[in-house]
């Protein structure tokens, strides 16, 4: 598909954006043609979200100009961008959880009946109309918090279309989707472009880029490296453009030499927040020196299993042992003290204290111990030098170690967590979705770290919704479906097809 002959709808020229201490966008230019899908690639912290937020009027560029259909525009706020036909689906959804789909869609551009009254009936009609027209099935009266993320994302897209967007920005839309949901999203994206809507699509998954993009733009360290067409690209050429060096996409590892049992789980049952049993009679073991992969579509109990094993959620039945000790009713601190490292699924909620500086986040698992604690006083110098060493070892992109965690880009937040968890002796590593939202370069790095730990004799429990990740890191795989283990496979048995079937709940 070549759509470069189509008229240019959006043009950004020489955009520069400076944050205190960071040059997030450095003289970036970008063009978007009518009806095309432009994939925007780049390492974590390359400045992709920043550029998009500028196009959407949330941030203001320090320099540079934006043209829509040839007209120069100046956005003071998102309202201006919306009026110019730009819609954006943010990395973190901007939906009010307790409100209905239709209320969220019309918010800020309400359908009125005079006297400030909402015309919900007509709004529901309009939303149904839109969802029929673009093939975005959703119940307009459903409450957002009851909907799965895939549907919530659809609501975000409807929100943009409702505001007559003809340029749609999707910031890492597939990071939180299951493979099936992602497929559905791509179908929707194609339907939209067929109707003349142009899409900017940010992702870290190179396969997706080759699958859906008409053109690919790559950013690195705040600069635009170039735009290419997908025909003559492969995953590794793209990765190299992004990172500026050769990236090994395949994990290199030797055979595992499992030794002592580090984690034994016996008939474990766990309930979720609604008191429904979501982990049902699960038994498994992980030995020192091996990686046990837990595959499964998200929401089949993996999250609760990990929370139980790390002491964050009470166990409703069964037991588990860490290094031979019954840890079923241990607190998170007691479990950490058994030399367990945890990379949590929700890094912003359970992995970091967002307003704290990086250096304090680096000692969350050790702040109560020397050298960081002197009795009840903290030793600032030790904390600082510890953090500085980790930041340079793990290549965390940050202006300084006193930068608050909240202003790091997604991938760099993850690196801070990994650095902290690996900075102490570890016997058991529990990693949940360790590379979600992370660029290929950092994935390579984190995968290497995990394999290195394994080779040092650490037992690794890896929970991931990415089949590729499971297949390339694991030494054995279990599949979870509706809270149960569907079977344990050796790597020889674990083919994509077989795993796919088990993940869908089919036993034979």
């Amino acid at each position, binding site marked *: 598909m070549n759509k470069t002959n189509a008229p240019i709808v959006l043009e950004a020229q020489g955009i520069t954006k400076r944050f205190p201490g960071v040059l997030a966008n450095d003289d970036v230019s970008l063009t978007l043609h009518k009806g095309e899908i432009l994939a925007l690639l780049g390492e974590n912290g390359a400045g992709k979200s920043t550029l998009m937020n500028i196009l959407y009027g949330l941030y203001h560029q320090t320099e540079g100009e934006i043209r829509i259909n040839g007209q120069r525009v100046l956005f003071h706020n*998102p309202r201006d961008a*919306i009026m110019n036909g730009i819609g954006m689906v943010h990395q973190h959804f*901007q939906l*009010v959880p307790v409100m209905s789909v239709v209320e969220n869609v019309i*918010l800020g551009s309400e359908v009125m009946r005079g006297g400030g009254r909402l015309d919900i009936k007509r709004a529901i009609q309009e939303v149904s109309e839109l969802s029929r027209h673009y093939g975005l099935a959703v119940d307009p009266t459903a409450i957002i918090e009851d909907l799965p993320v895939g549907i919530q994302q659809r609501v975000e897209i409807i*929100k943009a279309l409702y*505001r007559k967007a003809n340029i749609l920005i999707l910031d890492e839309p597939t990071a939180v989707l299951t493979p099936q949901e992602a497929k559905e999203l791509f179908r929707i994206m194609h339907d939209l472009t067929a109707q003349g809507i142009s899409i900017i699509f940010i992702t870290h998954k190179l396969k997706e880029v080759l699958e859906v993009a008409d053109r690919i733009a790559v950013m690195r360290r705040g600069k635009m490296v170039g735009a290419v067409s997908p025909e003559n690209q492969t995953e590794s050429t793209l990765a190299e453009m992004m990172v500026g060096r050769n990236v090994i996409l395949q994990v290199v590892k030797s055979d595992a030499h499992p030794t002592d049992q580090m984690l034994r789980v016996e008939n474990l049952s766990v309930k979720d927040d609604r*008191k*429904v049993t979501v982990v049902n009679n699960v038994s498994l073991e992980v030995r020192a020196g091996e990686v046990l992969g837990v595959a499964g579509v998200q929401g089949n109990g993996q999250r609760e299993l990990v929370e139980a094993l790390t002491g964050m959620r009470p166990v409703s039945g069964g037991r588990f042992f860490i290094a031979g000790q019954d840890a079923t009713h241990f607190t998170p601190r007691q479990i950490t003290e058994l030399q367990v490292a945890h990379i949590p699924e929700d890094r912003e909620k359970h992995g970091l204290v967002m307003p704290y500086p990086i250096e304090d986040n680096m000692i969350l698992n050790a702040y109560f111990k020397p050298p960081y604690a002197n009795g009840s006083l903290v030793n600032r110098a030790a904390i600082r030098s510890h953090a500085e060493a980790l930041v340079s070892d793990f290549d965390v992109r940050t202006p300084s170690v006193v930068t608050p965690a909240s202003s790091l880009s997604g991938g760099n937040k993850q690196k801070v967590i990994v650095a902290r968890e690996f900075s102490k002796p570890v016997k058991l590593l529990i990693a949940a979705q360790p590379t979600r939202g992370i660029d290929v370069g950092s994935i390579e790095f984190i995968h290497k770290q995990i394999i290195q730990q394994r080779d040092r004799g650490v037992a690794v429990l890896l929970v991931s919704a990415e089949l590729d990740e499971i297949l390339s890191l694991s030494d054995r795989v279990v599949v979870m479906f509706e809270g149960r283990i569907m079977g344990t496979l050796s790597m020889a048995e674990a083919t994509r097809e077989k795993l796919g079937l088990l993940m869908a709940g089919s036993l034979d």
Partner: protein
Amino acid sequence: MSTLATTSKSSWRELLRYSGWIIAGLVVVASIIGYLSNAQVTTSMLASTLRQSTPLILGALCGLLCERTGVVNIGIEGQMLFSAFIGFLANVYTGNLVIAVAAAILAGMLVGGLHAFMAVYLKMDQIIAGTVINILALGLTGFFYTAGLTTEGKLQPINLGPLADLPLVGPVLFNNPPITYMAIILVFVMHYVLFFTQWGLRTRAVGEHPSAADTVGINVNRMRYINVIIAGGIAGLAGGFLTLEAVGSFERAMTNGRGFVALAVMIFGKWTPFGAWGAALLFGFASALQTQLQFIGTIEIPHQFIGMLPYVLTIVVLAGLVGRSRPPAAVGKPYETD
């Protein structure tokens, strides 16, 4: 599996959800029985229920408008006290009750504006901001109050003609002074505004998820400013009720904790106007009952204990029947942008 346990639990929850209606039903039945046995006492008790509940529902409406927009307001007590005082002074010096009520409302809006300035503009801790208002109001009114000021009178009941002649409900509902009527009307207005208008939708969005509102072009801080000021006006009306309708004069610290009870009433009502009204009536009823019991004086219970009745009842109902209620998600958090 555990389906049986789940269903019995959820049917319990259903029951709790309707607890408000059940209580209301019991009260209606009790008042009819009461009316048949002793018409006069029952009528006066219900009338007193409504009177006692008026400042509470107004205070609660103020609180819930603030919190729905994302601002905690524990300064209702101070807002009420300050506007009660200003309304009283206006009555003393002009002798015009309409001007006095307007002055009370304006005073409330002024203090509301101060709260909004501290909470939204200065991004101060909102509990502290509310405390500042409470202390300031107590200090200012105490300092400037001079004993012996007299007024020409207070707001008188307006008889709604034939409606007021109905048995029981007539004298209770249709023969009240104006602020009581206004409080009832405001409950309906607030419900309508919050759930059926553009303003209400935006207000709730700003209180639940301000950045979602911001990204669709809503000015979060402006919404908060305006709502907190309007809410202040409602608290001002509650203050006006005390000095211009209930008593006709001012005393030091005369709000006597009503602003805080109003907050409990707001929570008990799950941040909805009708819920809060129900809660305010329940509290008002308990207060009326308490007065009645002390009046009869036949029961040998120290009056301090009878005086606790409304509070104990509120705690029991709050803790036992209402279940968990969820405040607006962004309440108390200042909104920061780039």
